[in-house]
């Protein structure tokens, strides 16, 4: 009796029809009664999306949920499989999830190609070859208590993806035999993208599956990774493709974006990345005196020049503002100069100093005009102070004379 109550309590979040089905299922009843480890799957099923849609244990495990006796309920002749072998899990899930007619009943927009994608992936190929170490459906999505991808508690919700992949890929023991690094998750968490997604909660920032794919998880080949970057960083990618680097990198089989910016530990690029100093990447390939070296130097000096011009304009304007002068108009215009700096930093990817120079020249003239306004405001301030000195002098004279008059009247 109390078991039924407990059952109803547990499954109450589930729609009534599904709850009814679950109560009828002997799997649920018996396993719950047995408690401990055997009751775990039932408890998890309260959150499971399959259960919420009216499916039950037997839809995956087979058997007969209408029978109470163990030999009949868990009868292999009725299709019962206690623990599906790892090689067959994907096919088991696919028996529904790749069936378009079946899936459209529950979600008209559901994709049905996950299984075929999986088979093209490294995970899929190794899994079919019998490797027990690689991921299959249940490793990422969970096995009982599977939540929808859009549910923030799902292991494959966008902010949880990196941790889920990292469960295996950061594990040295597990990954040892495959010969691939295990620092990707750590690097990603320090990167701009990791920061954007995890800390700033910008859900449009990329995570593992954005570049590597979900089910067809294959590392992008050397020639394809930049296409992935170029999906969001369109302008830089377009410019790069027009630049001399494009052919040079292709010929040498160097990956386009990754060579300078890295793949997982992508940090916020500063101006230090450009140029010929030790911290810069350009000098790593371009020898001193070469055309590329000169170009790098020139671009760096253009950008550094504009930045310092903007900084000095901002200094003057802030001084004027702190002194109480109204300079909101030139400060607004300065932001247009800053826009030019941002644009110039993007235009670096064309690797042609002449194009950069046009932008920085515009920026510098804006900065110069703003700085001029700042100096004018400071000059006006000086004028006011002089005016004050004159007026104060007249007033103080008047006060002095009045005091003299008062003294005179006393005598």
């Amino acid at each position, binding site marked *: 009796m109390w078991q039924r109550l407990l059952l109803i309590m547990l499954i109450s979040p589930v729609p009534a029809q599904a709850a009814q089905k679950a109560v009828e299922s002997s799997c649920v009843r018996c396993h719950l009664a047995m408690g401990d480890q055997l009751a775990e799957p039932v408890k998890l099923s309260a959150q499971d999306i399959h259960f919420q849609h009216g499916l039950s244990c037997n839809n995956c495990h087979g058997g007969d949920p209408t029978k109470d006796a163990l030999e009949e309920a868990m009868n292999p002749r009725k299709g019962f499989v206690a623990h599906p072998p790892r090689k067959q899990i994907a096919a088991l899930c696919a028996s529904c999830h790749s069936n378009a007619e079946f899936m459209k009943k529950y979600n008209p927009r559901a994709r049905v190609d996950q299984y075929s994608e999986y088979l093209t992936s490294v995970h899929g190929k190794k899994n079919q070859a019998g490797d027990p170490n690689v991921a299959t459906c249940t490793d990422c999505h969970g096995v009982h208590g599977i939540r929808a991808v859009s549910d923030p508690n799902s292991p494959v919700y966008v902010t949880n993806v990196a941790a889920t992949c990292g469960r295996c890929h950061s594990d040295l023991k597990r990954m040892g035999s495959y010969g691939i690094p295990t620092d990707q998750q750590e690097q990603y968490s320090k990167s701009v993208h990791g920061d954007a997604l995890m800390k700033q909660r*910008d859900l*449009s920032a990329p995570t593992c599956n954005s570049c590597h794919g979900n089910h067809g998880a294959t590392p992008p080949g050397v020639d394809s990774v930049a296409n992935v970057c170029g*999906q*969001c*960083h*369109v*302008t830089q990618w377009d410019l790069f493709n027009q630049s001399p680097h494009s052919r040079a990198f292709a010929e040498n089989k160097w990956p386009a974006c990754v060579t300078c910016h890295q793949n997982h530990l992508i940090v916020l690029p500063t101006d230090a990345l450009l140029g010929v100093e030790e911290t810069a990447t350009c000098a790593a390939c371009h020898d001193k005196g070469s055309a590329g070296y000169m170009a790098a130097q020139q671009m760096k000096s253009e950008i550094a020049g504009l930045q310092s011009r903007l900084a000095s304009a901002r200094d003057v304007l802030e001084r004027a503002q702190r002194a109480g002068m109204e300079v*909101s108009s030139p400060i*607004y215009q300065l932001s247009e100069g800053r*826009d030019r700096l*941002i644009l110039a930093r993007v235009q670096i990817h064309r690797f042609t100093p002449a194009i950069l120079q046009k932008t920085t020249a515009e920026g510098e003239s804006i900065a110069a005009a703003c700085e001029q306004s700042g100096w004018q405001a400071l000059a006006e301030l000086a004028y006011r102070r002089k005016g004050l000195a*004159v*007026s104060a002098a*007249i*007033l103080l*004279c*008047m006060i002095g*004379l*009045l005091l*003299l*008059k008062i003294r*005179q009247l006393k005598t």
Partner: protein
Amino acid sequence: MTRRNVLNYLLGTTALATLAAILYPIIKFMIPPRIVESSASSVVAAKVSELKPNSGKIFRFGSRPGILIQTPAGEYRAFSAVCTHLDCTVQYRPDEKLIWCACHNGRYDLTGKNISGPPPRPLEAFSANVRGDEILVSRG
């Protein structure tokens, strides 16, 4: 000239100077300045002749940029040009007939609604009206 007369004389002239020092700024204040006040709630964004159908123009609205577009059908629309993602300035794309943000490939349709890419909210809409040969954009 007694001391009292000198003092009175000085008092008189200094009083006049004081009065002048006070009245001078007051009178100057009352004379209207040459530049007519332009309120940031309404600006002339462009002249009618400047903008062709299926084109856009960035203009200053208060302290932030705005974008004025003429749709392919010939209607004027104005929005804040500040992208709702990370504040970059958007632009009009005549080839795609929509508003685009170059920074992260965000797209807005011609009603300002965010339709693709990272922007989380639509662009703030302003009202655009034609007055003579000028297009006036005002808030709300």
